[in-house]
Each structure stands twice: as C-alpha cells, then as structure tokens.
C-alpha cells in the first residue's frame, strides 16, 4: 500500500503560514500583552503603590472585598474566627460624639516606617522598594513580634497545617502573613487588587488602588476628590493606605 499524505496541500499552506506569522508576530504581540512591568524587571522605588478607602461608600453587610481576598489567596480557615487568617477584615466603628456607626475595611496599612520591620529579628518582615510591606516566609521564624508591634492588628499567624494553598499565595504553618497588595498580580502587570476589583464589581467603588507616581491612577484621583487621613497619625508611620470619611 502506498503511503497516504497525512496533510492536504491546503492544510499545509495554512499551517505553514500560521507558523511563519507566529514566528514573526508573536514577539511583538507578547510585548504588547505584557503591561507596564516586564516579568524580568526588578521593582523600583519609582512605583509607589497606595490605596485610598472611602468609608462613606463602604456598605454595611457587604463582605465582597473580604471574600475576594479569601478566594485570591486561598485563605480558607478552620471555622475558628479567633485564629483564622484575615488579610482584610471589616470593622464597625462608632463615633462617640454623635453615635454614628460606620464600617471600615482594615488591612495592612503598608507603612513607610513599618513597626513590624523594626522588630523583626530575622529581617523576614520587610518593605519592598515599591512600598509593599510583606513577610518573607522563607526566613520567618514565627515569633510574632510583628503582630504585637502592628497598631492595626493587620497580621495573622498560621497555627495549623494547611493543604489547599493556591499557587499564587504560598502560606504555611508557623509563619506570619498579611496583605501584600496582591504582589503577585502587580508583578504580572495587573494594577488592581482582588479587593478593589470586587468592590468595583459590587458597584460601591469604596476602594481605589494605584500608583502614587502615576498622576492618572485611580488612587490619585480619589485622593484629589476627598480629604484622606491616616489612622493613628500620631504614630507618624506614613501609611500608604488612607481613609476618607472618618
């Protein structure tokens, strides 16, 4: 029996054209598809990540940001609210003067003078040059000094063995962890955090995230619109997360 040709002429021409066009055009397309920061580039201090939270827009009973954070980082707990990890949580606050009640999303404030890094004995708590305060879990020994030093109770400790971690957020027993402004997303060129995205989807737009050095960023326009303040400004920690409406 004679060998049958496996591809027809038409197939061959179409496929070779695709291959050739791919070779010529893919490099262009890929550079366009990747956004601001190429994967190989180190972060620089030219970028200043920051967040502004409009408390007036934050809705009571809505937990979209918290849920999004849990999903993004695989923070599934053990139904033990005392010890389960929370990278972002909702607080209810009451003004003593006029008894007004407000809800506030509370997360790592990404201080420019972070007390957690001051007290860390191993240097595991560190501030990335673009302003993200995070834990290097490879060197964290789980002493929890940083948790005591943080005025905002933003950090959590993992008490139990975990099994369902997600690829983007490695986490394990014996380490402290906290919000890292979705560093994985940012490094891949996506300039929105999970909580901001969720808040936008819900239509509240209470959270605005972005780069302070970019004049057109969402955080900058939010800062222009309303007076923002830092919590516990008496500590002069220069947080990158600011609040308006409280």
């Amino acid at each position, binding site marked *: 029996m004679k060998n049958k040709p*496996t*591809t027809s002429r038409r197939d061959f021409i179409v*496929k*070779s054209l*695709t*291959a050739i*066009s*791919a070779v010529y*055009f*893919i490099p262009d*397309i*890929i550079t*366009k*598809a990747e*956004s601001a*920061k190429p*994967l*190989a*580039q*180190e*972060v620089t201090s030219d970028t200043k990540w920051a967040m502004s939270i409009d408390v007036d827009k934050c809705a009571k009973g809505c937990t979209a940001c918290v849920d999004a954070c849990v999903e*993004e980082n*695989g923070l599934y707990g053990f139904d033990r609210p005392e010890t389960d990890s929370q990278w972002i949580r909702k607080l209810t606050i009451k003004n003593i003067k006029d008894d007004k009640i407000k809800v506030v999303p509370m997360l790592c404030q990404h201080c420019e003078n972070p007390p957690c890094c001051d007290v860390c004995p191993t240097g595991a708590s*560190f501030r*990335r040059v*673009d302003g993200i305060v*995070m834990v*290097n*879990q*490879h060197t964290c020994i789980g002493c929890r000094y940083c948790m005591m030093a943080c005025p905002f109770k933003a950090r959590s400790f993992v008490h139990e*063995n*975990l099994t*369902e*971690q*997600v*690829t*983007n*957020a*490695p*986490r*394990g*027993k014996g*380490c402290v962890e906290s919000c890292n402004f979705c*560093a*994985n*997303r*940012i*490094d*891949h*060129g*996506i*300039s*929105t955090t999970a909580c901001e*995205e969720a808040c*936008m989807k819900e239509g509240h737009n209470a959270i605005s995230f972005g780069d302070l050095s970019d004049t057109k960023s969402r955080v900058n326009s939010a800062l222009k619109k309303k007076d923002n303040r830092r919590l516990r400004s008496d500590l002069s920690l220069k947080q990158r997360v600011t609040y308006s409406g409280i």
Partner: protein
Amino acid sequence: MHQLAIRLLLSILILVTPNVFSHDGINHSLIGKSKADSQEQCVEPTEIMQKEHFVFLYHQRDKTVIKGVRTKNHSFANCIDCHVSYDEKGKAIPINSEGQFCQTCHVQTAVNIDCFSCHASVPRGRKSVAKITLENEHNFHITKLTNEIINHVGDYSGEK
C-alpha cells in the same frame, strides 16, 4: 559452552550492578502524564538540573519575594506546572506524593523537602496572566489571540 554461559552471565552482572546503585540516568516511570514528558529538555540541561535545581530555586525565590522578579524559567510555580502528572481523569496528582516527580528522587537520595508545607503541590487557583481587568481588556484580547496562534503552532509541530 557451560563455562562460556557462566562467564557471560558474570560479565553482564558486573556491567549492570553499578547502574543499579547510581541514580544518574535512570528513567523513572512516573504514574500519569505531564507536560514535561513531551519536552526534549528542561530549562537547563538535564544533568545540571539534577544536581543544581535547588541552587536555581534558592536564587529565584529571593529574587521573586524581595525584588518582584517573576520570570518563568527558574520559577517554582512553573516547575510544578510542567512536571505535575495528571491521571486518566485529567486530575493533577500532587507532585510530592509517592511515585511522583519530586518524591522518587528525594526518597532515593534521602533528602527531605519541605517546599510543599507552604507551596501548592498541584497548580491551583487563579492564573495571573490571562486575567481580564478593567484597564487592559485590549491586552486580554491580544493575549487570547496569541494563545490561539500558539495552539495552532503546537498542533502543527505535533504532527511532524
């Protein structure tokens, strides 16, 4: 004739024995199929990878955590993405479970790894690359197109 047979057997035994004890060059038969099966070579030549993979990983982990470098070549997530095996139902088998890529060598060399007490042992969760965001919907469209073209090329090279 009898003696010749014995000699032949002996020589075969002598020739084969060292290979039984040395770990180099043994092809492990892993359960399931992985992406790496179809690749000719890992990100570095195989001998270098066998001896130095942890050096690459140590180096890359500091670059990633501290400096935000997310290149794929020596990235741990990418190792798992490529080397993890899938069973017949298409479900990923944890890479550190018995008979899988990491475990087969590490049991033999008696080196305990604790990567997977924190890192996911199967690709899990959202992938950062192909995500639609409010700002770069245009980019997402391009990414989708690129993926399509890459798939085409993949089909083509598979037929060769």
